[in-house]
């Protein structure tokens, strides 16, 4: 018996039905991406950091000293694993997190005010520039937060918390007519 299993997104239930047209403030949910945790081997931390930042094939998010989340829009989970192995061979352990994390991409003019309702970090551009990432609490939920543009942020949250975080973000954004849909 040959089976092609259907991959179900953690927010399938929440985002069922035709999406509303996006408003100025919009929450796009990443649907198909590869996420991996890169753990530098002892003594290889600096080398790995350098190698990871040497390419634009994927985005690198700081997770802990010597640990990064790598996010790729183009690779499959296996592809990303191979790419990272090739890039940092024998310097890093790669753990697939593609199914463990849900990506929330928040953009629009009110993004900072929306995020301030849950996140205690100072998101002023002088304190949290484009490209910065950090672990933070959004309300009660631990996320990895990255600034991807002047008015664009990405939150990476554990899959099991995705529905709760989604509800929280929509509540935080209701004042600014936040809309949500799966990313194209």
């Amino acid at each position, binding site marked *: 018996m040959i089976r092609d299993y259907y991959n179900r997104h953690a927010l399938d239930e929440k985002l069922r039905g035709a999406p509303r047209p996006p408003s100025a403030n919009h929450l796009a949910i990443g649907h198909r991406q590869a996420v991996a945790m890169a753990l530098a081997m002892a003594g290889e931390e600096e080398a790995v950091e350098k190698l990871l930042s040497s390419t634009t094939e994927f985005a690198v998010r700081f997770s802990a000293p010597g640990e990064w989340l790598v996010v790729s829009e183009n690779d499959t989970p296996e592809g990303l694993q191979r790419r990272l192995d090739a890039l940092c061979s024998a310097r890093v352990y790669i753990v697939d*997190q593609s199914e463990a994390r849900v990506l929330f991409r928040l953009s629009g003019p009110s993004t900072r005010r929306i995020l301030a309702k849950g996140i205690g970090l100072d998101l002023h551009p002088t304190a949290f520039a484009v490209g910065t990432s950090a672990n933070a609490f959004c309300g009660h939920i631990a996320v990895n937060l990255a600034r991807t543009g002047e008015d664009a942020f990405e939150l990476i949250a554990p899959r*099991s918390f995705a529905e709760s975080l989604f509800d929280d973000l929509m509540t935080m954004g209701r004042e600014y007519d936040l809309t949500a849909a799966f990313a194209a």
Partner: protein
Amino acid sequence: MTAYRLTTGGLVDRSRALSFNFDGRPLRGFVGDTLASALIANDQLLVGRSFKYHRPRGIVSAGPSEPNALVTIGPGARSDPNTKATVAELYAGLTARSQNRWPSLGFDIGAVSDLLSLFIGAGFYYKTFMWPAQLWEKLYEPLIRRAAGFGRVVLERDPDTYEKSWAHCDLLVVGGGPTGLMAALTAARAGLRVILADEDFRLGGSLLSETQAIDGAPAHVFADRVVAELQALPNVTLLPRTTVFGWYDDNVFGAVERVQKHVAEPLAKLATERVWRVVARRALLATGAEERPLVFGGNDRPGVMMAGALRTYANRYGVAAGRSVAIFTNGSAGYQAARDLHAKGIAIAAIVDSRAAAEDAAPEGTRVIRSASVVDTKGRRRVSGMVVERSGFEELVACDVVGMSGGWSPVIHLACQRGAKPVWSDQLSAFVAPDVSGRLRLAGSANGIYTLSGCLGDGVAKASVIASELGFKPAQDALPETGEEADPSFTALWYAPGAKSKAFVDFQNDVHAKDLGLALREGFGHVEHAKRYTTSGMATDQGKLSNINAVGILAGMRGVKPADVGTTTFRPFYTPVSFGALAGPARDKHAAPIRKSPLHEWARKNGATFVEAGLWYRSAWFPRAGEKTGRESVDREVLNVRANAGICDVSTLGKIELFGPDAAEFLNRLYCNTLLKLPVGKARYGLMLREDGFVHDDGTVSRLAEEHFLVTTTTAMAGGVMSHMEYCSQVLWPDLKVRFCSVSDQWAQIAIAGPKARGVMQQLVEDDISDEAFPLLAAGAVTLKGGLKARLFRISFSGELAFELAVPAGFGMAVADQLMDVGRAFDICAYGVEALNVLRLEKGLATHAEFDGRVTPDDCGLGRMVSPHKADFIGKHLSSRYGLTAADRMQLVGLKPVDREKDIRAGAHLLREGMKPSTLNDQGWVSSACFSPSLGHHIALGFLKSGRERYGERIVVWDKLRDQEVVAEVCDPVFVDPEKARMKA
């Protein structure tokens, strides 16, 4: 009619009238009014009855210190009790009700308590505790509770929503008066990120009530100009209607913004109130100063008000509180009020000055009575005159308002909320803030500088210092021009002697000067004792007007200086904050996040009943048609697993992957059993101890490759074990080369158990999973038919032949569907955590119901797992303590009711037959219990003294909760298949 709206003047918008309602009376006010100013404009000065004596009380102040004008605002579930009319912004359709009166404000039966006041003085409440004891609960308490009090809380669900928000700035300015505005402007122009918060709905503070010109313009016009400039700057956030209520560690401030408290129908998309947590590099308190009331006989009669409030009502709101105003003062502020009111055409009956001489100028033609005191007031629900006494000569002065001015107290609450004690200043006759670190400073009146020019200048100066400290360059702009100013001094007068009736210190809690005397006489003269004994300063206004006078009076009574009495302790909140605002959005099912397994939808689709397990929702059982109770479903699921096969969602268990050359050594030190030599492709049960030798957690350890491990934890301890590992790696053994990462969310994990489990799995898995190829405790990667990569473990928590299959989370539901599909031929069923629990109980397997933090491995019969050969592991050394190895420790046993019809519940205690229940006679307890469908009767696990030696003995299960005793037989904890033949199949 005595109080009225002036024909001109004020900052209210006379072109925009608003209708509102007080105690059922329709009234009108203007945009820009507070409820208090609109009530005064409608001659409604009487607004409530006092807390204890039910005396008629009127509006006293024009701000947040108001002790009397507490009303309930809003209809039904939206009603807010104890709202200060003096800060409540008027809006169209506002409904307000007076409080603590019955049947009406004008005629209140409770007022009889005023006649009984001899018997209900300070401390009477405590005295009712003493004797006779029976009367307390039956008589005193209900009576006191009914008679005393403020507004009533509404028991309906609050329909409003609340939220929280963080804010960050270089400088937080608290207070938007002359000092705060200039400070914010100076800092903002220099480039600092500035937040300016003010509790008023209009920024400007005292400038809105000021008649003095600034830069040739009225003060409020100057304020508007500054506000407009601030508003235009991108580095400034203005927060009107926002009270900064607390100062916390790391210079974080709490503030509450009343986002929609000034509208009848709040918008659904906005929160009604918002709590701000402001992280400020520096903060400046520009909170101003509070005018002190004077303590004189009859000072609580409606119409006796703060002189400064009279100014504010006249200048800012265009309202006169009366037609003939008398002033009682000890300083210049009383004269200032008289001049302003006189200029508005309000008659000044007299100025009574406690001082012998003063430079202050009274309005032309006004009678000034110096070296005099007010000893009483006349009138019923409204003051009609005051008795002035000078050198024994008493005189009745007719008036309909008495304005009192007792000097100034800087508002220093926030600065003293973190333990710093206020210090007494002889020069200012006031308590001022001590130096509380450069991160929070005070400026203007809050700093004891009371002139307008002084405030403007101090705001600029302090902001400039702060800007320079933070590396900004403040501009040297010229200060605004203010012209000639009066000397703001006063001579402290704590108590006007010769009071002919009650002289109130704390209006809100009905504490008068004699109560303080009683406290002192009865040994409660310390300021903290006097506060509790008399309740002075313990009402919702927290003694904003009264505390300083209470200190002064106690000092006078004791013959010492106020500095020797000191103040009571300042604590957050500066003014009351609603519970709704503090809870924010974390309410109902949002009180904590919900975690869902990747198989949640699969379980729901299969009809699961869910149970909350920590943050998780886990499937408890899967009822089928005709099953009326959970027990029926659970029994069927258990029997089906033992007879055929079942699948269960075990995704919630913690999963951590470890890598590195020292990963094996790391785990070997972490767990009490040996793991160093665990072969690749094998799983092993692992038991983890705490440093004190008790069990921490258990799970499995699988070696996926030489330097690659996967450990599982219990659901509850997933986070705890992860941080324990972080601690061990970073603090205890930083030299070990190991990296690890939680993969709990990456995998959907399904247990497949039962004699037909292999048959089911073979339908799905490409690989050979026969017992030879994949024996008990095998672990490794497999490929599902169709190509999906998965992990398979031959582990069993049911005693049956069992597998755990892990697939990437998103595929969990599809794979579980497929298992159910192909399993139909094998009579598979879904089973939940309840059946899981029964299955493990029948096998005598321990969980955290047993590992309750008091239990050693040997207690649970796992003593053989503690390796005697390892050099070290966490918990090794303290495991050998005498108490942990004693022979009479409680040991895990099984229990069966002798009468098989009886049941046993967890939590019951164990006693020898015939012994009385007592701590001394306690033989142990029941940790888990269930009905065993495999055996057809109840079974239980418990801990019993030297239990393993006592199999066969009869013991009493004493269940006090159900008041039931059951005789049980002590037995081996493994009830089913002790030879373990089934799981090896």
